[in-house]
């Protein structure tokens, strides 16, 4: 279990307890957090679960999956700390993770 903070583009914060094994994307979708679309359902075939990981957290996350950067190329305003939230699996180590949501996904 990890407490994850999702911050919408407008500043609205959502602190959610997400079970281990789920992805950061699923944590958002299951809790109706606006700003994560996840059109492809987590198959890394779109870039609509794009998040900006808080700078100090970014290096602590497991490395990007093969192909993740290719999809991020196609995201809305990708930055150096961009990730696809469907590729981040929640574990105890992620307790306290903060992700910012982009202005829009599509």
């Amino acid at each position, binding site marked *: 279990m990890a407490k994850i903070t999702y911050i919408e583009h407008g500043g609205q914060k959502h602190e959610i307890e997400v079970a281990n094994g789920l992805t950061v994307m699923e944590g958002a979708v299951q809790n109706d957090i606006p700003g994560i679309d996840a*059109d492809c359902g987590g198959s890394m075939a779109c870039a609509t679960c794009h998040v900006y990981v808080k700078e100090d957290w970014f290096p602590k996350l497991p490395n990007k999956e093969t192909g993740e950067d290719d999809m991020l190329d196609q995201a809305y305003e990708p930055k150096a700390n961009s990730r696809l939230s469907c590729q981040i699996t929640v574990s105890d180590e992620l307790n306290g993770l903060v992700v910012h949501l982009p202005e829009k996904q599509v």
Partner: protein
Amino acid sequence: MIKTDALIIGAGPTGLFCAHQLGIIGLKCEIVDNLDKIGGQCIELYPDKPIYDIPAIPECTGEELTNNLIEQIKPFNINFHLSDRVQEIKKEKENWRVKTLNGKEFLTPNIVIAGGVGSFEPRKFPTKSADKFDGKTVLYSIKDKTIFRDKSVVIFGGGDSALDWAIELSKSSKVTLIHRRDEFRGAQSSVDKVKELQKNNKLEIFTKYSIKDVKGNGKLESVEIKDDDGNSKLISADYVLGFFGLIMQLGPILDWGLNIDKKTIPVNTETFETNKQGIFAIGDICTYPGKLKLILSGFHEGALAARGCFKYARPDEKLRFEFTTTSKAVQNRLGLKND
């Protein structure tokens, strides 16, 4: 104007198999898709990726699955209307009058929406200033490459489209290629070619840069790019091209008075009809308790929606349930010769 028993929106696996099921029960259909090819997400997003959960097919790629479905519906001679999008629908007595972007019209008692997550549209630049040049000097696809002759063209993107056009246009234009990271995702041979052209001063490449602003008063003059540290650079440009892949948008479907729940359309699970009579939704675009976004679920949904279409297409007939193994009528529809 084309009269048909059912109009299917979306030529992905779900739409194709629904067409098969309509054919099996003796109904005609037409299929509209805004991509220029058949196959939907399977062909656009993952043509080469293997799929492992199609019943009785241990492994096949998106392209193979599509080709097999096309083969399977061949007996029904279904018309495809590609590179077109259904724009407007209007109820006319028992029918829906359907208009497409390209001006085609259909009259049909049934519309089956098998639109996946929406129609594919190019992703545009996030900068508002790019909008006023959109379609004129800021472009996301190329119809006529001769307009770029002897012009300065700035290309954004790291995939095959960006690389291929950078190579092609460098022959007769001043090309600058800009990508947000050092690695390109396009074919290695294209990456090598682009780097060779750069070495020979045939084109310029800036990596780890993204667009900041598009400048020009009436006429496009330059594009400003920025790196991760906020340093910016101004590049003069007659044309700016963006190749960031495709996004999926529901588009006009949102305006048809259908119930929409988080970009999906609620349906009943008996016929997959929506809140509008004669409009069905199947595949990724529909939702109901227990919905799985799997191709196999789309097949099931298409089979039931086809039966749902029957009562509106043949109000005076009763649908008989038949097997393809034994029914002479079905085998005739499949074009099989009975001894």
